[in-house]
């Protein structure tokens, strides 16, 4: 089985972030790291693939400046190889044009199963995985909290507001996983040392048979027209508990119609 895991490399969320004043999108220069939400997908892929039995886990990513730090982290966790698409022409891509580019890259890995996070931790659009599935003509199952692979099928517990649906679908297919689907492993020292020698194929837009006018800002239908600061959080109310604190708690919860 060929498992492809979509991996996004993002600016470290713990470091101060800034928006480009012209495009109003996140500045993504400098070192990027593996998006935490993708670590779940990588772990899921590693658990589903029987690597000793010849199954292959391939990472696919798109990032500026040939950035590979996040991919190396996922390779250190145990993935077999990686494909990186990096090209100046990709600057300003929206979710759909990203999906078009990665669809071309993913086809090369002949996937039986594609895994992606529900959404990224920097852009949060949450639309890329289903766009990708549509472009590849594959069924997609979103919000997986449990994934098992059987004889040519994938069975998913799909998280809903009320509980979960059990969904089965034939492979090949795309599945998006929620945080907590599995507990991501830490890279071991042997994994870290092996990561550098694993195959990492770097592709340009031309390598994928695409034209620069179809991708990046030129190929995007979406544009950020305005950005405004989030409302400051209002100061909370401090209640001195003199034995009657629970009454405030009950009143507060009633106001929110929670009880």
């Amino acid at each position, binding site marked *: 089985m060929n498992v492809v895991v979509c991996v996004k490399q993002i600016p470290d969320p713990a470091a101060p972030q800034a928006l480009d004043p012209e495009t109003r999108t996140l500045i993504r220069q400098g070192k990027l790291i593996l998006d935490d939400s993708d670590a779940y997908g990588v772990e899921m892929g590693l658990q589903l693939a029987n690597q000793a039995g010849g199954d292959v886990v391939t990472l696919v990513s798109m990032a500026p400046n040939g950035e590979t730090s996040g991919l190396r*982290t996922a390779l250190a966790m145990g993935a077999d190889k990686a494909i990186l698409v990096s090209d100046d022409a990709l600057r300003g891509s929206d979710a759909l044009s990203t999906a078009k580019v990665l669809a071309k890259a993913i086809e090369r890995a002949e996937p039986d199963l594609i895994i992606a996070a529900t959404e990224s931790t920097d852009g949060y659009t949450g639309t890329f995985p289903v766009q990708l599935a549509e472009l590849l003509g594959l069924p997609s199952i979103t919000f997986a909290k449990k994934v098992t692979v059987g004889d040519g099928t994938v069975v998913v517990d799909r998280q809903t507001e009320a509980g979960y649906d059990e969904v089965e679908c034939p492979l090949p297919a795309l599945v998006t996983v929620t945080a907590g689907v599995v507990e991501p492993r*830490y890279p071991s*020292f042997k994994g870290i040392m092996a990561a550098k020698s694993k195959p990492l194929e770097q592709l340009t837009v031309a390598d994928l048979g695409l034209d620069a006018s179809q991708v990046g800002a030129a190929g995007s239908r979406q544009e950020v027209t305005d950005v405004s600061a989030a409302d400051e959080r209002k100061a909370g109310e401090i209640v001195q508990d003199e034995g009657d604190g629970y009454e405030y708690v009950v009143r507060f919860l009633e106001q929110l119609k929670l009880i």
Partner: protein
Amino acid sequence: MDFRETEEQQMLRQAVDSIAAKYGHSYFTEKARSGGRTDELWDELAASGFLGVNVPEEYGGGGMGISELAIVLEQLGTNGCPLLLLVVSPAICATIIARFGSDEQKQLWLPRFATAELKMAFAITEPDAGSNSHNITTTATRDGDVYRLRGTKYFISFADESESVLVVTRSGVDESTGRGKLSLFVVDLDSPGLEKTLIPVEIVAPENQFTLFFDDVEVPADRLLGTEGDGLRQVFMGLNPERIMTAAMANGIGRYSLDKASTYARERSVWGTPIGRHQGISHPLAKAKIEVELARLMTQKAAWSYDAGLDAGEAANFAKFAAAEAALGALDQAIQTHGGNGMSSEFGLADMWGLTRLMRTAPVSREMILNFVGQHSLQLPKSY
């Protein structure tokens, strides 16, 4: 020249950081105060191979060097979990055994250092010898198939949780100099005739200190490391890693302290402004930051020199001196920045004092390093 760490070193730092952050300083102090051991943290680090990074690959280790082991310890310190055990078991003992052990000895011990299943203590210090290793009085006498060890060792860390101890003994006298000839033995801590007594110390750390009494302890001859009488050269091979690792631990504590202090100074507001805006707060912290970063740079250089097979003695001494002083300065200023909170248990600073202060004295004192630098780096007359 390139001062950046390799991609592998950065990933190692990050992976150790993720594990240590789950435990944190409250775990460390809770174990220390209750007399518990940090087995959960140790086992998790060991399972990922992080405690055997410097053990040769052919014995199942990571095949890298003291640079990588120093990164592991520094990141543990940065998270408030400075495990002294790393300075001794993998850094001193595994290094000496990998370098001087026979093939059988390497096969016996190194795979278990690689998995960190083996914890080995190191015994050189004696009540009456102090820093003078030539005056070691613990003796090893050949008796048929065994050696008999007699004497006392002092301030032996974690002799309770270790399986064995690497002991520096006097096994004869050099006729030409009159000095003792040293030999190293790996001795099981449950050997008959070997007694240990706890030394109460004012250090909040999970590792305990002991006096070891060797009363005619029988040690099989195959536990002699390398060649009899070659001990001084063997010991010196382990002492530079010990200094470099002590520096790395101090650097971790320095960074831990500065992180706590700067977070507090940004958030703590008195008279309507964060206290970090006042130069009385910010300048001493900035100075401490510079000193910690300088110490890290020298530690990196010392580790790199050692791993490259160059003479690391001078750099290792510089690093240990600078790192111990910088860590003490940073911790002191972090406590000061916290006002009264600096002494409260909750803020996790004052409890670090004993361990950090120890590093000004051990494994080699500030004064002995200054003697070394005066004599060797500046070619001043020998003082002792």
